[in-house]
């Protein structure tokens, strides 16, 4: 022990040790995070690209090179395009409701209204529900006989459909539960945008004689564009990744009525064990999400937000 402390006291060695510490400490700190991300995100990304050029059903010991054939067969498969179409309808429907509604509610709840905090809490509450739980609750509400929705429709002498069992209504039902779950989240996003508005601009405009409608479109709305773009991209990405609610409510059905891209990948990989095809679909999925994210970053730069 004595020897060690004497060595430590030797100025030259200590400074070398310190220099070594300065060199190594950052990497020591980065190591756990980088190891985790490398093993479970970055390497799998490369692996999924590699697997997408192979044929493999998990039974043969190794994936066999398959060239572009997975992509060719995917792009000529009606099921794949149907899944893509469902993903698009799903994302656009959720976005089409949740963005205007979230903004509208945020606008009202940004006024000096009594009990506005209670309202904010109620609208945000569904966000903490596990999506599987929300999905099951909605399955109950939408049960064809005895479910609250059809009982209410029956009072109005309307025969309600078998919501989750119908190819026409199943996707609508999944859209409804997604909107219910996330509406409060987007309300808070817009609320945060509204609270960053520069009040001086609106005041100046009204001094110049702008009406409240004019003031909104010419002064307030442009300031909210970055928030709106961000929220739009986020809702699209969030719905693109949806799985839990679909799994518990419809399992992709009836037939393929609620099979979205992610659900399609899951089925190809984990039910048909077609790893190559599922990987090719995954690569297309990453490209799609990447393209949307790029649009967001471009948009942020153009409209003056912080892209990082």
């Amino acid at each position, binding site marked *: 022990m004595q020897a060690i402390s004497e060595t430590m006291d030797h100025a030259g060695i200590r400074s070398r040790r310190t220099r070594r510490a300065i060199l190594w400490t*950052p*990497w020591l*700190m*980065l190591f*756990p995070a*980088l190891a*985790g*991300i490398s093993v479970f*995100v*970055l390497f*799998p*990304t490369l*692996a*999924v690209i590699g697997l997408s050029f192979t044929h493999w059903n998990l039974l043969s010991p190794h994936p066999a090179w398959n060239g572009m054939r997975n992509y060719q067969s995917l792009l000529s498969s009606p099921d794949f395009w149907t899944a893509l179409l469902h993903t698009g309808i799903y994302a656009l429907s959720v976005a089409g409701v949740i963005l205007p509604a979230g903004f509208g*509610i945020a606008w009202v709840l940004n*006024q*000096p209204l009594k009990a506005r905090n209670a309202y*904010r809490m*109620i*609208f*945000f*509450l*569904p966000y*903490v*529900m*596990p999506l*599987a739980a929300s999905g*099951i*609750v909605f399955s*109950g*509400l939408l*049960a064809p*006989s*005895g479910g*609250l929705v059809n*009982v*209410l429709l*029956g009072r109005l002498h309307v025969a309600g459909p078998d919501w989750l069992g119908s190819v026409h209504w199943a996707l609508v039902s999944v859209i409804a539960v997604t909107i219910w779950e996330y509406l409060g989240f987007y309300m808070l*996003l817009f*609320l*945060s*945008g509204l*609270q*960053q508005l520069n009040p001086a601009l609106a005041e100046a405009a009204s001094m110049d004689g702008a009406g409240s409608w004019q003031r909104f479109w010419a002064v307030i709305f442009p300031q909210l564009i970055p928030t709106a773009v*961000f*929220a739009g991209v986020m809702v699209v*990405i969030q719905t*693109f990744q949806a*799985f*839990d609610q679909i*799994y518990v409510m419809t399992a992709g059905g009836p037939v393929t009525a609620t099979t979205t891209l992610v659900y399609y*990948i*899951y089925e190809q*990989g984990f039910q048909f064990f077609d790893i190559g095809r599922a*990987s090719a679909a*995954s690569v297309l999925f*990453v490209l799609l999400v*990447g393209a949307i994210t790029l649009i967001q970053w471009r948009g*942020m730069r153009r409209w003056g*937000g912080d892209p990082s």
Partner: protein
Amino acid sequence: MRKRRSLWVWHLPLALFALFMLVPLWWMVVAAFDPMRALLGGHLALWPVQWNLSNFEAAWKSQPFGRYYFNSIATTTAIVTLQIATSTLAAYALVFLPFRGKRAVWALVLLAMMIPIQAIFIPDYLILSQLNWINTYQALILPFAASAFGIFWLHQAFRNVPRALVEAMVIDGASPWSVLWHLVLPNTRPAIMTLAVLNTVFHYGYLFWPLLVTNTAAFRVLPLGLSYFVAQQSGFMQWNLMMAAVLMTVAPMMALFGLAQRYLRAGVMHYGLRG
């Protein structure tokens, strides 16, 4: 004053809409406490015939819910703790320490943040099955022990710690570890709490990943247990038992919402700040 009074107009639509949003939750509670009959035969089940705990008993017995609770709480706690630890260290190095290759590391973090797990779950699954880790706690926890989003989030928070304070401590001979522990962490506690709460909500409710890497009841988490409960009853659905099970699953998140909703709300509003 006139403006304030005109705002009263908003209360009617707001209250109606709030009720509308609460209907699914209220229906869940009513069904969970109600004996079966009231839900069939076209009755409007907005109030239970009697408040009864028998549904909870029956649901609890029909599946190993105790085990599910333990699995959910243990894995969520482990994920959140590990993720906060790894992200804190990485974010500290990226914000405060000089080193070569920082830009490359940051680029990798941003790249990783753009890749959803739904696109790479096949190789992830293959890695875990190669390790014989299917049906283990490792398989549920380790893929989320590090998170690009967590690093990104804390990076934003750490940048707001005044550099002068950090430099003063370094000149006084403090090591990076001690600066992190005594200065940076105490000053960024709200951001860390927010990350922890957002993560807890997400991982507690997560069905997709546990579905892939477990297939025995011993390692099932609550959302997965719920989905098995649904499958088990196919044909004749006992909604009352179902809703009792759902309520048991949701209850801890409702409690968390009550305790930590300011962190949750701050977290979501902070997303907006980036916009």
